[in-house]
């Protein structure tokens, strides 16, 4: 193709003025890429056209610029109002997911702690039921057994609040101790129960110090004694003594 003839054919003006067909446009754009002189001819005509147009200026109404800016700003507002919607949704989902996670974590924690608490309560309940059953058994044993004799041991003058009770089965010769109120002994000391027969002390055993902590039994089973006139508790060294050496805390006659 003769490029100069192409330039002079009127295609340049036709293209720039927007009168070329789609086919002509495509061909012209290709020619501009391949032949710089075609591109230059296009630019030259564009500049002439612009110069002509600038000579034909007609002042638009003064208020028009403001009207245009109002319109594009209103449009910008619509755009910014539309934009946050998906963002908001994402946020909502994020927050909802976070809330769900927190609720789930909280629920799991709550479940675990409830399970733990429930297990603990279950154990405590079972322990309490067993303890109550033991106490009821003890109570039945001393209250419904006509062979039981009771010795109320009162505090010595230096421990007036101290009080304990011995139930002695005259038939089985079993002795049971009820500690109504005794001071908690020092850890290197233990209370020891004695039966007194004709002024002679008979060892009925030491009271485990754990009792004062747990108090899980109503009655403490003491050693058997074939006979007794009175009972007494002394505070002895840990493990007890064959004969009382410590001071007497409580004493009562049968």
């Amino acid at each position, binding site marked *: 193709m003769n490029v100069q003839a192409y330039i*002079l*054919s*009127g*295609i*340049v*003006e*036709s293209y*720039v*003025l*927007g*009168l070329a*067909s789609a086919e002509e446009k495509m061909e012209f*754009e290709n020619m501009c890429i391949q032949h710089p002189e075609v591109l230059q001819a*296009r*630019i030259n*005509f*564009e*500049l*002439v*056209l*612009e110069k*002509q*147009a*600038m*000579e*034909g*200026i*007609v*002042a*638009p*109404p003064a208020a*028009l*610029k403001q*009207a*245009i*800016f109002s*319109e*594009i700003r209103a*449009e*910008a507002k619509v755009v910014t109002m539309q934009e946050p919607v998906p963002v908001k949704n994402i946020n909502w989902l994020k927050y909802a997911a976070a809330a769900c996670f927190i609720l789930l974590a909280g629920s799991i924690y709550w479940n675990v702690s409830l399970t733990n608490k429930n297990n603990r309560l279950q154990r405590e309940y079972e322990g309490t039921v067993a303890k109550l059953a033991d106490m009821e058994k003890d109570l039945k044993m001393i209250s419904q057994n006509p062979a039981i004799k009771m010795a109320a041991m009162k505090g010595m003058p230096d421990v007036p609040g101290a009080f304990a009770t011995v139930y002695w089965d005259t038939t089985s010769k079993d002795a049971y101790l009820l500690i109504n109120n005794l001071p908690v002994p020092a850890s290197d000391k233990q209370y020891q129960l004695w039966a007194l027969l004709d002024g002679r002390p008979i060892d009925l055993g030491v009271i485990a110090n754990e009792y004062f902590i747990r108090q899980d039994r109503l009655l403490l089973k003491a050693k058997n004694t074939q006979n007794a006139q009175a009972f007494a508790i002394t505070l002895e060294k840990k493990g007890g003594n064959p004969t009382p050496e410590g001071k007497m805390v409580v004493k009562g006659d049968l």
Partner: protein
Amino acid sequence: MNFKPTYSEVELVALLQEQSEQAFSYLYDNYSGALFGIINQIIPDKEIASDILQEVFVNIWRKISTYDAAKGRLFTWMLNVARNAAIDKLRSKGYQDSMKNISMPEDVTAISPSVKMQADDYGLRRMINKLKDEQKIVVELSYFQGFTHEEISKSLNIPLGTVKTRIRSALTLLRTMIQA
């Protein structure tokens, strides 16, 4: 003296594509008069032309991302946006009903009044007024009234090839006139 920034075309396009209101304001201040001029050549009614100019600038703002510098200068693009908007209005039913007299002419003589030189003719229109009548008519109908070559051929009852040749020769002549 007011300082006004000036932009190179590349800068201006880049700023407009970033939706810079300052650049858009510059564009309006520098080109609204020229675009209003081209719209007025197609739609003489100032009020309607003013509405079209508003539409044109809003469209330039909206569609600046579609402008391709490889296909022409920014002004050429804007000029064609303005011309197309004015022709759309010219050919709309509402406008034709209100104007009555502007419709596809049935014969050559009917075109003559609209092609007749006016006192306030300027720019491209003033240039085409220097062309021969048969060239003037085809340029008027195609460029200022937006008729296709086929429509012109049918209307003027001349072969399609002749329409194309006349337009081309008119534009070639235009070119030599400009360069003279």
